[in-house]
């Protein structure tokens, strides 16, 4: 039995007086889980993720992250919706950033940075600038930067929403492979049912106004999955189940006409 690595206990977040973005969210995530936060826009999934990262203070409640036994410069990494790279720095320097901020010298960091860049298949582009890369490649750099400190927890905030279908499905497979190889605990925010079902071992369906957990669905299919499963009837059944749960949480005005 895996111990809980992230625990949220009645966590709430208010913006101003009127908006209750997250309302008494209670959740326990175990080490090694691949969890998706799935929901319509405005359901507080990104807000919840930022609170777990410590980038937004909670209004009420507690978030506990079990401290790591191993030493690491950074235990928790975050991948934003945009690649969020420094345009003035090369791919190498972008990936080196977390180690540089932790005080690791360039020569000491060199092999680790190179390994992280190789892991996402961009070795040939180490000296390129972000503007010379495609959207998918930039996102790979962002993932390499997240992995370079060898974190235990990876938080991803709709990272592939802006990418085309082919790139997105390729990156989906890469993320699952990396999560498995590195033994990561992943929280993946998305509004795509198919992405959530394909990637996750568990889907947290969230509802809006106020943002809250509407359903906690475990996906039983063996993980990691392969491309064949994406086009199998089993996938459709799972997607339909998750989709039905999601629809049940929607207000009438959540659906764009």
């Amino acid at each position: 039995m895996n111990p809980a690595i992230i625990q949220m206990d009645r966590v709430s977040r208010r913006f101003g007086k009127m908006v209750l973005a997250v309302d008494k969210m209670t959740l326990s995530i175990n080490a090694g889980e691949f969890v998706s936060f799935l929901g319509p826009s405005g359901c507080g999934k990104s807000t919840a993720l930022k609170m777990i990262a410590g980038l937004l203070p909670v209004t009420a409640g507690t978030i506990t992250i079990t401290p790591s036994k191993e030493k690491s410069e950074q235990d928790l990494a975050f991948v934003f919706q945009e690649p969020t790279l420094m345009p003035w720095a090369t791919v190498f320097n972008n990936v080196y950033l977390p180690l540089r901020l932790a005080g690791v010298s360039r020569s000491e960091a060199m092999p680790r940075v190179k390994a992280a860049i190789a892991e996402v298949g961009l070795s040939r582009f180490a000296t390129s600038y972000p503007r010379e890369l495609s959207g998918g490649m930039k996102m790979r750099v962002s993932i390499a930067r997240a992995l370079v400190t060898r974190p235990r927890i990876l938080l991803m905030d709709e990272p592939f929403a802006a990418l085309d279908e082919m790139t997105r499905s390729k990156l989906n497979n890469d993320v699952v492979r990396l999560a498995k190889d590195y033994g990561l605990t992943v929280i993946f925010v998305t509004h795509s049912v198919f992405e959530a079902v394909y990637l996750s071992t568990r889907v947290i369906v969230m509802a809006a106004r106020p943002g809250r957990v509407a359903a906690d669905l475990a996906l039983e299919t063996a993980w990691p999955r392969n491309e064949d499963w994406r086009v199998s009837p089993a996938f459709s059944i799972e997607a339909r189940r998750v989709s039905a749960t999601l629809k049940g949480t929607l207000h009438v005005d959540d659906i764009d006409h």
Partner: protein
Amino acid sequence: MSTTLITEDHAAPVNTEQLAREKREKLLSWLMPVVTLSTAVALWEWVVWYYAIPKYLIPAPSLIAQTLIKDGPSLMVSAWFTVKLTFFSLSLAIIGGVLLGALFALSRPIEMSLFPFAVILQVTPVVAIAPLILIYVDSTFAALLICAWIVAFFPILSGTVIGLRSADHNLRDLFTLYRATPWQRLRYLLAPSALPQFMSALKVAGGLSLIGAVVAEFVAGAAGQNTGLASRIIESSFRSEIPRMFAALVLVSMLGIAIFALTTWASRRVLGHWHESEIRREH
């Protein structure tokens, strides 16, 4: 349904027309200004000669060139004075603007308390303050320097403040996540983010420092040994030495062009490899 994979690899025909057009455009980009400028000067020379305009009204370009050569040594001394004044004031504007801008960006209270002073300095015409400065400050050079500095300082200050504030919000979050120290944040995030704004402010301030130097000298009406090009212009106008006025004017604009070229070059050097404003598009 059948699928055909295209694997043949013929050398594609080269678009020679496209290459020729690029070459032509490159040639035109420097040929056109040279041709128009030369034509304008030639026209000027011809009009002066044809209508026999006296040299105390409008001197011909050839006469201005002769004056430049004849009065070269004395004009060069004045030009050097103006160059020193301009670059000294620009350097001080950069130092002051960047330091104060960084302070403003780091602390809201400091900005709120000092910003009114910066605005007052900016909106009051330097011509109006200059006589006072000349009364209070003994050394003429120092007084002129202060005037030119006031003009050039504000663009650098506001460029630095806006630049330091323009860092991407997600990148700021990233630096927070990795527990960057304030120094690391400034060095690796805020300063590079501020560079585009700073460089465009520098282009403006470069031109303004020359204007400041010239205007201040006009107001000061300084005469004597240690004076710049503006004094030469005033002095020549008193003596109705119009060709000499033009010669000094040519030197002032050449100095302005040199400053513009220098700041543009610096901007390209600093931003060329990453910022949209300086990246050359291939058509």
